[in-house]
């Protein structure tokens, strides 16, 4: 196991990380700017939407999902699906209370 690293073998260029970081900063600025617009009910959704975009960047590039085995992506999707189901089913209660 000496010299061989784990499966995402190719070394990611520093520039990729820096670019992702810049994109994240831009998205943060957008999130803050958008919060000044009165969006009522869409406000939260917009915030979550942008946050999801940011987290995809972190997952894919900082956490190397983009470069590793597909298995990790599958696992993440399964976990997120499970979580979505938990929230979704809970809202069959809270979304319909009198």
């Amino acid at each position, binding site marked *: 196991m000496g010299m061989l690293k784990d499966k995402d073998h190719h070394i990611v260029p520093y520039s990729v990380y820096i670019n992702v970081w810049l994109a994240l900063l831009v998205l943060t600025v957008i999130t803050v700017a958008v919060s000044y617009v009165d969006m009522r009910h869409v406000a939260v959704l917009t915030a979550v939407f942008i946050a999801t975009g940011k987290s995809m960047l972190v997952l894919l590039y900082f956490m190397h999902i983009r470069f590793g085995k597909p298995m990790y992506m599958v696992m993440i999707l399964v976990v997120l699906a499970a979580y979505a189901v*938990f929230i979704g089913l809970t809202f069959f209660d809270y979304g319909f209370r009198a």
Partner: protein
Amino acid sequence: MSQVSSAAGGHHEHHDPEANKIGMWLFLFTEVLLFGTLFIAYAVYLNWHRWDFMAGSHELDKLMGATNTVILLTSSLTMALSIGALERGKKALSLIMLSGTLLFSFAFLCVKAVEWTHKYHHGIWPDAEHLGVLPYGQQLFFGLYFTMTGLHAAHVIIGAVVILFAMGLVARGKVHQGRVDFLENTGLYWHLVDLVWIFLFPLFYLIH
């Protein structure tokens, strides 16, 4: 996969970086569900008390929240760079980047401390009398605020300790170019801490 077996031990020294990576990801999944549960509570009460939540959000300091977001995002960058450096055999650069990450984590905690002190002086603190007379929705908002940012801060502290430990291993050559997985997995944990904040920030500071 080679296995070095010791005679009567049952304790065998094989290093399996892929297993360590899977193990760390599985642990991260438990963290996702942990914070996720809190977000469920947040979603439920937001749905019930939309205006009160927005009023509560108004009380929080956007600037400090945004600053902390930038701090954490940058700390994620330095963390990723430190791993990249070590993969290239650049031990010194790796340690510098790790120190940067540590510093940023410390800065985050300082900003948090300032924030919470402000809140305390404004009577917004768990179980504070002032809080007890606010509308239910605001009580719940701040209840979740302290719980979630508090738990998150605890994870920042834990992450910082692990990073410090990793720095020791890197400095001593135990973690190096040919055996980098400990640092990679430390990075995964740190990025998770960043991910949680990416959602905490808008949902607490920016909804109004």
